[in-house]
């Protein structure tokens, strides 16, 4: 789990140096789950509203207690951008890459910021169905990415 060497990472993913995590007690369970290839989202036990990234209070009812709900990792693209200019030199050989906002199908209100892989930059669209795939960056650190949903 989460222990593959870098050479096994999917083609086109961004450099591992960008995946530095600084989890706090509220976000740590999310990243612990991704390392197990599980997508979990925080949901208020009081009113059932999802809150991601997880925070100490429910923005709807102010309750603190959460439960971690496992999601199946499907969603639709709410918006996207094709990054064609490398803001830092380190990204020069990685452009173009696509950043997508993905609304999860089974966690209403949860929007993930992820790289959309496996699609030509000119073929990305809003509303596109996508599936989560796992990018094991290094031991204990796995970042979710998305691919166009398998059809049929």
């Amino acid at each position, binding site marked *: 789990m989460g222990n593959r060497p870098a050479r096994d990472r999917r083609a086109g993913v*961004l450099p591992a140096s*960008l*995946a*530095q*995590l*600084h*989890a*706090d007690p*509220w*976000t740590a369970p999310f*990243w612990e789950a991704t390392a197990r290839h599980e997508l979990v989202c925080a949901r208020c036990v009081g009113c059932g509203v999802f809150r*991601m*990234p997880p925070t100490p209070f429910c*923005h709807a009812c102010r309750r603190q207690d959460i439960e971690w709900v496992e999601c199946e990792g499907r969603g639709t693209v*709410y*918006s*996207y*951008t*094709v*990054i*064609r*200019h490398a*803001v*830092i030199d380190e*990204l020069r050989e*990685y452009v173009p*890459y696509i*950043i997508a*906002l993905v609304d999860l199908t089974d966690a209403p*209100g949860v*929007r*993930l*910021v*992820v*790289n959309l892989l496996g699609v030509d*930059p000119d073929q990305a669209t*809003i509303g596109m169905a996508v599936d989560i795939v796992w990018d094991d*960056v290094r031991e204990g650190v796995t*970042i979710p*990415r998305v691919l166009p949903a398998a059809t049929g």
Partner: protein
Amino acid sequence: MSETAIVGVGATPYYRRGRSEPQTVLEMAGKAILAATEDAGLAIEDLDGFAYFMGGLDTALLAQTLGIPEVRFTASLTGGGGGSAGSVGLAAAAVTSGMADVVVSVMSLQQSRQRLGAAFLPTQEGAYPSGPTPELDFLLPSGLLAPGHSFALITQRYIHRYGATREQLGEVALAARANALRRPTALRSEALTLDDYLAAPMVADPLCLFDFCLESDGAVAVITTSLERARATRHRPVRVLASAHGGAGAWGQAIRGLAMPDGIFATSGHGPVAKQLYGAAGVQPDDVDVALLYDHFTSMVLMQLEDYGFCAPGEAGPFVQDGHIRWPDGALPVNTHGGNLSEAYIVGMTHVKEAVEQLRGTAVNQVAGAEVALVTGGPAQIPVSGLLLGRG
């Protein structure tokens, strides 16, 4: 808000990113402040307050350096560039409350080590709220490093929702450039055509090079005092009609989270601030003669035109394409100084300076008979801010 007025504005020259060296940030701040006091006909010893945004400067060092006899107010709005216009409101609040008499709002920017165009990188220096944070963990691994990336995502959704075109975004850039060409202070002095715009490299789809503002160095200072005291200064006072800063909690971190709900996602986030501002000033959009809208990205000018009620949601594209934001003939000249896009990006403070010159009647690209000016700060995370100024 009881009566306050802007009495002085001052600036250093504007420089391309990093080119203001070997001056220091403190040095440029001091030059802008001294120029503003000179403009007002005040002595530096009259200053007793400092009102900032984006973290501000070290007042202790600044006051000691400039020999300010007594500091009676020093505070900064939270957040980023969204507070530029609001920093003048903060100064006015200090004066209105009686805490201070003569308050300067100042931004001094040097982007050699701090580059706002890559503001989310944890290696950034400076006061701007930066990483690493647990929240940015949800952005940075996907290569979302810059405000421009976030605004590209907002713009793409806006285009999807309303059908805005590249030609419409381009008109914002072209209008700003046309205004800048007449100004010796502007960093961009070459003409820009629609063909140039359409042929420019894409940076972050759907935003191309000319949709992004400049990356600049420099300092701008603005001095606010009571209207009564203002009447004894050098220029016709420019009254602070109202100022507002903030925004909806659901807008929140906005470009640093992208979690805004669908109903407000494709906006500038200025809606609540606009409502508060117009209400406090007793002014309607129709009353505004010139709008100095924070233009870090062309598309965000469109969304501000909508949020400030100059046109309905989704209609700003056709609105600009019809020539309405052009100086001098448009119904609402926008960014007559060339804006962040073509004059200089001093985090929105050049917009305040231009509004003051418009209402004094001394602007290079003067809007005839201008009596009310709108200045905005942001779109960004909250606070975003607005300022309505009137001819004194």
